[in-house]
């Protein structure tokens, strides 16, 4: 089960984490919850009838585990850490756009500050509303909207920088 869902679960964890080490910790915390609660998972059927609900369940657990970690880290991480991290991103993103793979796009998301990253993931990729995000992250919905807008701005800027080096643009990939 770990091997089967590794890629799927890890893709979620990486989006919510700053680096691979953090993502692995989230992944393992999530799998521990899955293994602990798998006895209560009751779906009758075969194939996709089981796979999709199970996948959805795993996704939810991974997202909530990542959010828990985000909330825990919020107590220890300050703004300085966030700015330093964003600065580090600009230094480490000289990749030509044409060769940019999904991994590198996810790297851009990873390089966002924790607050922006969490809101962007929850809203854009995982489809939560601002109200739900506000509840999960313990912030107001206004802050959630603001963080999303800023996250988009940061991502656009970074894509533009890459775009200058490669006139083909990311859209032509």
């Amino acid at each position, binding site marked *: 089960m*770990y*091997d089967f869902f*590794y*890629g*799927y679960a*890890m*893709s979620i964890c*990486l*989006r919510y984490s700053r680096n691979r080490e953090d993502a*692995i910790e989230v*992944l*393992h915390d999530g*799998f*521990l*919850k899955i*293994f602990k*609660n798998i006895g*209560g*998972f009751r779906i009758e059927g075969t194939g996709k009838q089981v796979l999709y*609900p199970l996948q*959805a*369940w795993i996704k*939810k*657990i991974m997202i*909530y*585990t990542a*959010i*828990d970690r985000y*909330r*825990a880290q919020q*107590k220890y991480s300050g703004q300085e850490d966030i700015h330093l991290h964003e600065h580090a991103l600009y230094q480490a993103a000289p990749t030509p756009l044409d060769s940019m793979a*999904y*991994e590198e*796009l*996810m790297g*851009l*998301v990873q390089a966002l500050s924790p607050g922006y990253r969490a809101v*962007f993931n929850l809203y*854009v*990729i995982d489809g939560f509303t601002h109200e*739900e995000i506000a*509840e*999960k992250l*313990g912030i107001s919905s206004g802050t959630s909207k603001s963080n999303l807008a800023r996250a*988009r701005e940061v*991502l*656009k800027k970074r*894509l533009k920088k890459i775009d200058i080096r490669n006139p083909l643009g*990311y*859209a032509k990939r």
Partner: protein
Amino acid sequence: MPKDDLDQLFLDAADWFRPVQQPEDWTKMAALLDRRPARKLRPVAIALVFLALLAGGFLLVRSMHPTQAACPGCSSRLVQDHHAAVSRAAGVSARGKVAENAPLANPSPTAKSLSGSDRSFQSRGRVVPGGSPRHQVALTSSLGKNQPLVSAAGANAILATPSNPGTRSGVGLVQPGASPAAIPSGPMVLGGNAPIGVIPFNMPSIALEVFGRAPVSLSDQSPPVPKIRRPAMIRWQADLLLGPDLTLVTSSLWSNPGMDAGIRMSYHFSEKWQLESALLYSSKIYKALPSEYHPIQPYTGMPDLQQINANCRVIDLALDVRYNFKTTLGGTWFAEAGLSSYWMNREAYTFNYKSGGYPTSTSLAISNMDRHPLSILNLSAGYEFRLSRRVSWQVQPFLKLPLSGIGYGRVHLVSTGMLFSINYGL
């Protein structure tokens, strides 16, 4: 780039992105799965620490009072082999016939216990210099009807006088500095089976020499004896505390016990009353139902919340009044009551809920957020085992009742448990 295109770009990337598994990832996961929960070791750790506490107390007392600690029954047993040996080495000798069927607890060839079933054994004693501390010699005697029996101690001389002619049960105390006339003299007849006295030699310069058929002469050779002073009451006391702590919110949901550890200072107003202040670091582990959980800022997003598991670290500052209602030779029965203030040092909650019918959980960790001054009523009672004048240890079952909601969930946290402490009078 329009924001919708941007969102779609990253959405597609997320959908198609599949990281490759590294071989060491499963190794880490397997290690996590194999790891035993740490809390299973907690009872063993508590037991070990408690045993270490007891052993430490015992060694401390033994180092302070080597003789008593090595032989706790000394005061009640009349004769011990080593006592007799030490007495002999200290200058106590006996001349006369030692009965073969001496009725002593532990007779041995080295024991110079004086006894005799025949009444022909007669003895008298005198105090001579050269004894060593804390020697005891037991005498058994068949005393003449009007003859007092005298034993000697460094600080006191114990005078045994037949309260009833023909028997040998009377014991009197010769006060230090008593006039020679107050101390009876005359021949002392020893024999028979009845143990009648113990002669402890507390002063280094005093020993007892027993001669056959010689007159008793204590008063003229007794050295000056210091006055007995009643020791001043120890006012301050410091305690080290340790014990299990069982926290309950719902009677039906039991958790593993946590642990309390800390220090306590006491001030003794009198023999009966004490004021105590304790600083405890407690782990409160409990389970609560959603109906008992009333957070000020509700942690929402869990539509079908089933249960909350909590593991909190609490700093408990207690102020109690203690009443010693019965003091015996070995210790003190007491009861105490007071109030505690809780400082929630760390709160970790796991919310177990169902999402779409599937069980899942999420957690929340809070540090140093909630403080509850004087919000807990402390009730306890126990027994303090006296090990020496300054050292004791005590067992103290306790009950802590909340006067308000505690922690993030404002739950009514009831704690009970047993505190073991080792106490030292300052």
